[in-house]
């Protein structure tokens, strides 16, 4: 064997490993870029749609501040905040779902199944119906209620550490309790309040409060980098607790930090739009399937969450002429069959999620 051949043979595993890593990265990047482009296209389309249809050129003019006053008002004051709110709420929910599902190693463990968003419904309906709160005050109360419920779920699921399965079961219990509370509040309230509360509980972008939107924007900017940072040990943690501890991961501390950031993300989202169902639940599994290779797909999950929510909101606004549905109706119709499929499949595989 010549020296050259020896050299080639000794470097070939390294190049194979590098090539494999490159493939993984480029796949994740491709999915992210495609999702981002689709989001841009959908966003552009959504700005032209509405009671007064606006030509694409006029939309552009309005965005750079060169349109007439009416067009400017429609685009910048009405449609743009709704679009931004939708994209941010979707991104936060998608990322939140990806984080909690990977920490619990269970696709059922998304904020809308394990009682995080149910807690938002409960605090929201109490605040709306009993105390008549709206806008920023409502968002604040919902944020607080969601965080308290998450802490409660974590503490109740704690027993020498938190196992994914117990986390899901305790969460479902909390969700049932919150559901009961919502029903109680609604049956005791008068009709006009119920109407308003129901729209909010379903999850809606119909009345986004500007100051709540500002809180959401700032929260997203702060929390997304946090999520990527605390999510770094998740790759090791996904190999099992024992192995991760052996690799030097502080498993409980990591779980607590990741769940904390994920709940905060879900909370700021539902505080603005109400508990939009199934976005957190759907985005991460789709992103993971697209990226493949056991990837956590955090960024693609966020982008897909945004895409799902913006598309759903367009459908909610224009599917039935003259009726603007809450966006949660659409996400619910899309998400529920996936939940059923997942439950049926889990049962067949027999690994309990």
């Amino acid at each position, binding site marked *: 064997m010549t020296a050259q051949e020896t050299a080639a043979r000794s470097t*070939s*595993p*390294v190049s*194979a*490993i*590098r*090539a*494999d*890593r490159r*493939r*993984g990265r480029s796949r994740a990047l491709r999915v992210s870029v495609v999702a981002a482009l689709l989001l841009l296209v959908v966003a552009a389309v959504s700005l032209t749609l509405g009671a007064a249809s606006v030509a694409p050129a006029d939309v552009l003019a309005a965005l750079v501040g060169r349109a007439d006053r009416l067009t400017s008002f429609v685009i910048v004051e009405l449609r743009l905040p709704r679009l931004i709110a939708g994209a941010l709420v979707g991104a936060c929910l998608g990322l939140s779902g990806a984080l909690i599902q990977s920490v619990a*190693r269970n696709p059922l463990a998304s904020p809308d199944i394990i009682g995080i968003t149910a807690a938002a419904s409960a605090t929201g309906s109490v605040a709306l119906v009993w105390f008549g709160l709206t806008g920023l005050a409502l968002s604040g109360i919902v944020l607080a209620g969601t965080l308290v419920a998450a802490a409660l779920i974590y503490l109740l699921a704690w027993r*020498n550490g938190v196992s994914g399965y117990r986390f899901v079961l305790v969460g479902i219990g909390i969700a049932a309790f919150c559901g009961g509370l919502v029903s109680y509040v609604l049956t005791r309230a008068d009709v006009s309040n119920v109407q308003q509360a129901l729209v909010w509980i379903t999850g809606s972008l119909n009345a986004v409060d500007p100051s709540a939107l500002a809180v959401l924007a700032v929260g997203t900017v702060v929390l997304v980098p946090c999520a990527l*940072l605390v999510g*770094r*040990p998740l*790759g*090791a943690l*996904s*190999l*099992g607790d*024992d*192995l991760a*501890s*052996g*690799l*030097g*991961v*502080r498993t409980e501390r990591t779980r607590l930090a990741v769940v904390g950031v994920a709940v905060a993300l879900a909370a700021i989202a539902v505080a603005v739009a109400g508990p939009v169902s199934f976005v957190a639940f759907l985005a991460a599994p789709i992103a993971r399937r697209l990226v*493949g*290779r*056991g990837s956590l797909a955090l960024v693609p999950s966020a982008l897909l969450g945004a895409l799902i929510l913006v598309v759903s909101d367009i459908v909610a606004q224009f599917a039935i002429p003259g009726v603007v549905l809450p966006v949660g109706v659409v996400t619910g119709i899309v998400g529920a069959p996936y939940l059923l499929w997942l439950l049926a499949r889990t049962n067949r595989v027999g690994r309990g999620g």
Partner: protein
Amino acid sequence: MTSETMSPELSARGLSLAYEGRTVVDGLDLDIPAGRVTAIVGPNACGKSTLLRGLSRLLPPASGTVLLDGADIHGLPTKQVAQRLGLLPQTPTAPDGITVADLVSRGRYPHQGWFRRWTAEDDEAVAEAMTATGIADLADRAVDELSGGQRQRVWIAMALAQRTDILLLDEPTTFLDISHQLEVLDLLLDLNAARATTVVMVLHDLNLAARYAGHLIAMRAGSVVAAGDPTAVVTADLVRDVFGVESVVADDPVTGTPLVVPLGRHHTS
């Protein structure tokens, strides 16, 4: 780095381990000989896996200490321990669709900091581990498509990529057929010979333990019954004492190590 001047040593002093108040390992004193292959054997539920969890700082002691290079292992930063001591638990989980190279690369976690990116050294460590375990040509294959024996080699490669002087393995041969069992044990012996890696493994099969280990620790009900060279330690008395089984101990015709032939009710010597 300092392996010539200071040999790796793992030991336990008065170590008790408990699960939810139930003591499983009781007041153990133990030295793991550096640079050798140690096997821990014993009947089911004797605490051998628990001991391994204790030695690898996964389970904090109820009392006593585990010492790594003379220092309390629980007082050391966990990432620092992970650079000295690798662990392969019994049932690790591979994420769906993960590739071999990606999984082995995760063994580099303890060498990565908040700001330190992946380096050429990491690539080399991963490549070396994959070459040593004979899986270099599987780099881009999905782990869930591999056979049980190949998969176990991938996990061992992951532990090797960690580049530690000490490697603890909990029943590395379970669920493998005999040829793959031998393959895994041969591989561990190769590693020990090539780099003087200290290997500690929990094994089910007493004969394989006697053949492959240079040092044997026999446990029963949370205590060490005997420890030492298998040739000196494995006797019919010990087998009766530890497993409650009558047996004849012969010389292995190939290696000369003790070969245990258990008797049971229908056979007598």
